[in-house]
C-alpha cells in the first residue's frame, strides 16, 4: 500500500472570510506525477485552494497530508513548503538579475555557489532564457519574466508544483510558446502539478485530471474527456466550452432515443428520459455542421434546422457562428468553409447535428 499513498491529500478544507465560505473541499487527492487542473471562473476559489493546499495561508479548518504525513505544526509546514514551488499570475521577480532570481530558492537553502551556478544555468537554458541571465529582471518582457519565474520554481526541484494562472496575463504568442515549453518540461520531469486556470484549452492540454470549481466547491473532477463530454451540470457544461446549452421538455421517447421540444422545435437525443421531464441539452459547437442547400440526401444527422446567422466571431483558426433557429445554436466552422459557403450575418443556413452529439443533463432529483 506504500506506493499508493497519494503525494497530497486535503480533507475537509474550509476557508471563510467575513462569514462567507470561500472554500469547502471535503476531499481532494493528488497522486504522484499527476497534473491536476483547477478550472473555474475568477473568484471561484482556485487561488484560495492553492494557498490552502500549500499552507501559505493556513485554512480555517481541514487537514493536509503530504505523502501520508499530516502537515500541522509550524515546523512541518516549513518542511512541507521547502518541497513545493509556486508560480503566480504575476512573475513577482526580485529587483536583481535574472540569474540571482532563479538562484534565490537555492540561496535560501544555502546551496554551494558552484552548484547554484550549474543548476541555474541548466534551468535558464531549459526555458530558453540563458542569454538573459545577467539582465535586470525589471527589463524583461512579460513572457520572459514568467519564464524566469518558472525557472526559479523548477530550480529547487520541487516535489509539488503549484501554478496559479501563470499564463493569464501574457499575450497569445508568448502564452502559446510558454505552454508548449511547460508541457515539455512537465512531461520530462514528471513533476506533480496543480494548475489553476480559467482557460479550458490550457487545462485540456496539460492535465491528466480536471477539477471544476464553483463558489469554493469542486463540482466535478475527472479526466478531461469525462469533464468535457459529460459535464455534470449546466455550470460545468457552459464553463468547459459546450457553447450551446438549451432547456427543453421531453415530448416523446422510445427505444433509447427521445424527442425534446425546445421553443417549438423538436430535437432528438439519445438516452433515457421521462415524459414531460425538463432536461438540459449541451451541444458542442464543433459537432454542428452548416450547409446552404436543402439537400435531399439522407444523412445520419437526426437534427436539422434552418436558421439565420446572428453573429460571426473569428477565433483564429476557425470562426464561431451564432445562429437563431428557434433556439440559439453555436457552430464552429473553418475559415475555408466560411468562404466556400460565403456565410455572412443574416444569411439563412441549415444546421445539423447528430442525436449522439448531444449531451443531456437531467435535473438532479430534489
Amino acid at each position, binding site marked *: 500500500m506504500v506506493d499508493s499513498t497519494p503525494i497530497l491529500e486535503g480533507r475537509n478544507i474550509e476557508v471563510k472570510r467575513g462569514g462567507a465560505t470561500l472554500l469547502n473541499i471535503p476531499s481532494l487527492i493528488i497522486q504522484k506525477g499527476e497534473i491536476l487542473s483547477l478550472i473555474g471562473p475568477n473568484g471561484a476559489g482556485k487561488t484560495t485552494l492553492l494557498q490552502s493546499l500549500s499552507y*501559505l495561508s493556513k485554512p480555517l479548518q481541514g487537514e493536509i497530508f503530504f505523502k501520508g504525513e499530516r502537515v500541522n505544526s509550524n515546523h512541518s509546514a516549513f518542511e512541507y513548503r521547502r518541497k513545493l514551488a509556486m508560480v503566480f499570475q504575476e512573475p513577482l521577480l526580485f529587483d536583481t538579475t535574472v540569474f540571482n532570481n532563479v538562484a534565490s530558492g537555492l540561496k535560501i537553502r544555502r546551496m554551494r555557489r558552484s552548484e547554484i551556478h550549474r543548476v541555474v544555468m541548466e534551468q535558464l537554458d531549459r526555458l530558453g532564457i540563458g542569454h538573459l541571465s545577467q539582465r535586470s529582471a525589471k527589463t524583461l518582457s512579460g513572457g520572459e519574466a514568467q519564464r524566469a519565474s518558472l525557472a526559479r520554481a523548477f530550480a529547487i526541484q520541487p516535489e509539488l508544483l503549484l501554478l496559479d494562472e501563470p499564463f493569464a496575463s501574457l499575450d497569445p504568442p508568448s502564452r502559446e510558446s510558454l505552454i508548449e515549453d511547460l508541457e515539455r518540461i512537465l512531461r520530462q520531469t514528471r513533476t506533480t502539478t496543480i494548475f489553476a486556470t480559467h482557460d479550458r484549452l490550457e487545462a485540456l492540454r496539460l492535465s491528466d485530471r480536471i477539477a471544476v470549481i464553483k463558489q469554493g466547491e469542486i463540482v466535478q473532477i475527472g479526466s478531461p474527456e469525462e469533464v468535457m463530454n459529460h459535464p455534470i451540470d449546466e455550470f460545468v457544461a457552459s464553463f468547459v466550452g459546450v457553447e450551446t446549452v438549451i432547456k427543453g421538455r421531453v415530448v416523446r421517447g422510445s427505444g433509447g432515443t427521445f424527442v425534446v421540444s425546445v421553443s417549438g422545435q423538436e430535437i432528438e437525443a439519445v438516452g433515457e428520459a421521462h415524459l414531460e421531464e425538463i432536461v438540459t441539452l449541451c451541444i458542442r459547437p464543433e459537432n454542428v455542421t452548416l450547409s446552404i442547400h436543402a439537400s435531399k440526401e439522407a444523412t445520419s444527422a437526426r437534427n436539422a434546422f434552418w436558421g439565420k446567422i446572428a453573429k460571426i466571431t473569428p477565433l483564429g483558426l476557425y470562426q464561431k457562428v451564432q445562429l437563431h433557429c428557434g433556439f440559439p445554436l453555436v457552430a464552429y466552422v473553418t475559415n475555408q468553409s466560411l468562404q466556400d459557403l460565403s456565410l455572412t450575418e443574416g444569411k439563412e443556413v441549415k444546421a445539423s447535428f447528430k442525436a449522439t452529439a448531444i449531451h443531456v443533463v437531467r435535473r438532479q432529483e430534489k
Partner: protein
Amino acid sequence: MKFDIFELVGNQEKVMDLILEGIKKAFYLLITFDPEVMKITLLSLQVSGTATFVSLLIGISIGVTIALSKFPGKRIVVSLINTGMALPPVVVGLFVTIFLWRNGPLGFFGILYTPTAMIMAQTVIATPIVMGITLAAIQQLPQKLRLQILALGATRLQMVWILIKEAKLPLLAAVMAGFGGVISEVGASIMVGGNIKGYSRVLTTATVMETSRGNFDIAIALGIILLLLAYFINLILTQIQQRERPR
C-alpha cells in the same frame, strides 16, 4: 567683523558685503582647517550619525514588524507614526529635557547637557521618520511577494531580509530623510545639549549663536559647511541608491 542688525535694514550694499565677507570667511575657515570649526563639524557628524544609526535599528525593525503584522488598531498606530514624522524638534527637546532633568525619571543618568542627551533627542526625532518610510516602503511591495518568498522555502527571517532588500531604494531615502532631519535640527540640540563650547556645540547651535551675536560672517561660514556636509552625505547615499542598476 561685527554688524549691527539695525544698520542693515534698507542698506543693500552692506548686505551684499556681508554675504561676500561670509563666503570669504567660510573658505578661509575651511582651507585652514580651523580647529574650532573642525571640532564643531565633527561633533555634528558624530551626534547626528549616531542618532541616525540608532534610529535605523529601531525604525526599520519596528516599521517592518508593523507592516507585516495584522492587529486591531493598526491604522491608529500607523497614523501616530506618520504624525511622529513631523515631530517638532523643540517639543522633543522639551520632553527629553524634562526626562533628563535632575529630578526627572531619568535624571539619575546625569546626562543633560551632554552629547549623549543630544543623540537621544535626535534619535527620538529621526526614528518616526525612518519608521514611517520603512512602513510605507514595505507596504507598497506586492502582497503576493511575501507568499512567493515563503513558497521559495524561506524562513520568516529570510523573508524579512529579502523584503528589506526589495525595498532598498525607499529605505535609503529613509536614511537620507532621517539624517537630513537631525543634522539640520537646532531646537532639541540647544535645549538638551546647551551649546557648550568645545563640548556640545554643533553646527546648527553655533550658527544660531553667532547670528544672534551679529557675527554674520562666521554664521554664514557655518551655514555653508552645514550645507556642504548635508550635500556630500546625500551624494554618497544617492550614489549607493542609484549604483549598478543593470540594464
